[in-house]
């Protein structure tokens, strides 16, 4: 079954540049590009089905306008047509579902990662902690924090929230995930392009929801190592690590005592 679906999907991937993008984009990670191809597949289906229905619809409007007072033939059932438009959508749905499963399994898989980032969302900012190093980045509405990750590396993200539900969304990754209080959400991504990408909280989280930005900076591996070394700050890290450790251990996040309490 999977191979059966993977084949056309792979063909689609190969010809990706000739198929229209339908408003989406390939993104900057391996995951985002498979999402993009799924998007293209769904869009082709939508255009075909939507186009077909629209043509029927417009034809009916133009062709069957009232011309006098005749009463048309009172046909109510047409077996072949009804069977076709029941069976075909079911087949389409199975196809879409199979394609979905392939991409979904790829996205929720947790391959071995070399870099881990603990992402903690709070009202109204982000904290990026790099375990086993001494780097922590904190930013709020006044200054957007930047998460730095290396290119071509599996990066494992541990997503938590301190207070309410936030949404970790990076458009370039074609991906979002809730930061839930009391839950450790994990996912892995592999950036394939260097550059600066913007991210934003997408789940309503209170007054300054509109301004809860962050950046993701994808750099080469050597630049990443250098950046880690230059930003090491044992004192801040110890404080941050303590709270993060508590959260994962007891699943009960507590509000950091630091300067985030402007609500």
């Amino acid at each position, binding site marked *: 079954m999977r191979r059966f679906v993977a084949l056309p999907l792979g063909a689609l991937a190969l010809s990706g540049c000739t198929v229209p993008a339908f*408003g*989406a984009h390939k993104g900057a990670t391996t995951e*985002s590009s*498979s999402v993009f191809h799924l*998007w293209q597949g*769904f869009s082709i289906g*939508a255009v075909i*089905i*939507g186009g077909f229905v*629209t043509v029927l619809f417009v034809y009916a*409007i133009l062709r*069957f*306008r*009232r011309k006098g007072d*005749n*009463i048309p*033939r*009172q*046909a*109510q*059932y*047409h*077996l072949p047509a009804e*069977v076709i*438009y*029941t069976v075909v*959508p079911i087949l*389409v*749905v199975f196809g*879409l*579902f199979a394609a*979905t*499963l392939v991409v*979904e399994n790829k996205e*929720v898989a947790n391959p071995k990662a070399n870099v881990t980032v603990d992402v903690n969302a709070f009202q109204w900012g982000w904290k990026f902690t790099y375990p086993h190093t001494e780097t922590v980045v904190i930013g709020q509405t006044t200054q957007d924090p930047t998460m730095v990750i290396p290119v071509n590396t599996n990066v494992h993200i541990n997503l938590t929230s301190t207070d*309410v*539900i936030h*949404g970790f*969304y990076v*458009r370039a990754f074609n991906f*979002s*995930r*809730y930061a*839930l209080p*009391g*839950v450790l*959400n*994990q996912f892995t991504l592999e950036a394939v392009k260097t550059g600066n990408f913007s991210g*934003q*909280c*997408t*789940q*309503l*989280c209170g*007054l300054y929801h*509109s*301004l809860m930005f962050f950046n993701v900076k994808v750099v080469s591996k050597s630049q990443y190592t250098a950046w880690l070394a230059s930003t090491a700050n044992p004192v801040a890290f110890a404080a941050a690590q303590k709270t993060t450790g508590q959260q994962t251990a007891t*699943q*009960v*996040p507590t509000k950091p005592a630091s300067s985030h309490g402007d609500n």
Partner: protein
Amino acid sequence: MVDLITPPPAIIDVDHDGDEGHDEHHGATGILKWMTSTDHKVIGLSYTVTSVVMLIIGGLFAEIIRAQLASPNGTLVSLAQYNELFTMHGSVMIYLFAGPFAFGGLANIIVPIQIGAPDMAFPRLNALSYWLYLMGSITMLMGFFTAGGAANFGWVAYAPLSNSINTPGAGADLWIGGLLLTGFSAIFTGVNLTATIFYLRAPGMTMFRMPIFTWNMLVTAILILLAFPVLTAGLIMLYCDRHFGTHIFSVAGGGVPVLWQHIFWFWGHPEVYILALPFFGMATEIIAVFSKKPVFGYKSMVFATLSIGALSLGVWAHHMFTTGVVLLPFFSFMSLMIAVPTGIKIFNWIGTMWRGELWFSTAMLMALGFLFTFLIGGLTGIYLASPPLDFFTHDTYFVVAHFHSIVMALVLAGMGGLYFWGPKITGYLLNEKFGRIQFWFLFIGTQVFTFPQYILGLDGMPRRIAMYPHSPQWKTLNDWSTFGAILVGISMIVFVVNVGYSWKKYPCGDNPWDAQTLEWFTTSPPPHHNFYRLPQIRSERPTWDYNHPEHRSLAHGTGGTGTHHEPPLANAIVGALEHDQDHDA
């Protein structure tokens, strides 16, 4: 005391004075009559008027929201006011307009007449529904007049944002209280509709002869009974969390915030169909009448409605794909499956038009506008049923655009319903010229305001943001969206002007559209207990059969030429359902 009496046997000539005492309602007049009436038509009209007022209030909120977003650093309202505005926009539209308009307003008026009933099964409960709804609406909107402002946690009130620490103040409690009242109102209406449809049908009106609108209302009513109690329970839990120190949804006390989402969406997704099915029914009736044909694939239409109802209980967590804690394949599959019955409905609508004689009255234009807009909303909905694509678009304007395509389609169908059934309720037609102007403003405005939002969503604009200082390039598309919203606003003004202009101007007679179902057999407006007489009911179109005895549906084998087909599957099921009955009869 009035006995509910079913009408006398069918007679061709009717002496309208023959059953005096039932057609005239003696008693109080004026405002006291309105307050004490238990007539389903009076209650339904109150519902309709109230819910259209709510539509206008919610629309005003929308216009303010769009004005704020017309520039990247909008300063029209503050961040706090913006949160209140979109919360109340969503709440008013979902809780106070769409549902009550459909199952409290039009269904209340039309369903009993469509099945030949003298009133709803529980007239006093029906009146209570209206008062709970009205007081609930007032309660919810009272939030704007409290010190802390109205509720501001979004219409979904996700815990823990909705707890007493993050959202203190009376506005949130008023929101909960208002929802409790309207929730009970909906439950009572659900009880009433189910009982009416099960017990008060006219002789010969078997289940498979009920008009599609009534069928859709039956499924809606059952869904109301399944879903609304869950919401009410959830709201009580939320209230306890806020005031009585329980920790059902708070992590600190060992609770689970995601539980609120499960409870909310277990109500919330059936609610989507509770909103949509009545409007599907309206569009079905309108398209059939103005094509001069029976509903194409009547039985598959009924089974499509039933399957939507059945599946709707298993799809709630597609709103929660990005929480990372739900069973993705199950909900993805169930949600995709809903596309099948929905597709059947769309093809049936086109099949109804096929080879018909289309009369493009305002009601028909609205129904066709519904069909097209719903097609767009439905197709974009299929993307959202796929978890990877939902990760990509969740909580962006893509989702906002998707459900606005859907709900604006419902508004179009609802407006069609008003133009179609309004004459039956009031006895007077609305002006068609104004109607057409209103349609074009509404239809074009809808597309102009949703289409840029799809692109904005794909471009990464999150929902519920009051400003976008980092992305000024979104301004152009937002301006287009705002322009579309203004067009929609103008269409509402045209509607209000039309109602004023046409006030008691164009008397309509009993059956202005040559319509098919039973409500068009009685007078406009119908007498106190709806019918002076009833025709024999031998199909789902008794009025049509009566007026055009030589043009009955081919499926019934009594007229026309050529062969006809019935779907064997649907027929087998109907046969099995009715089989025992034949034995008894």
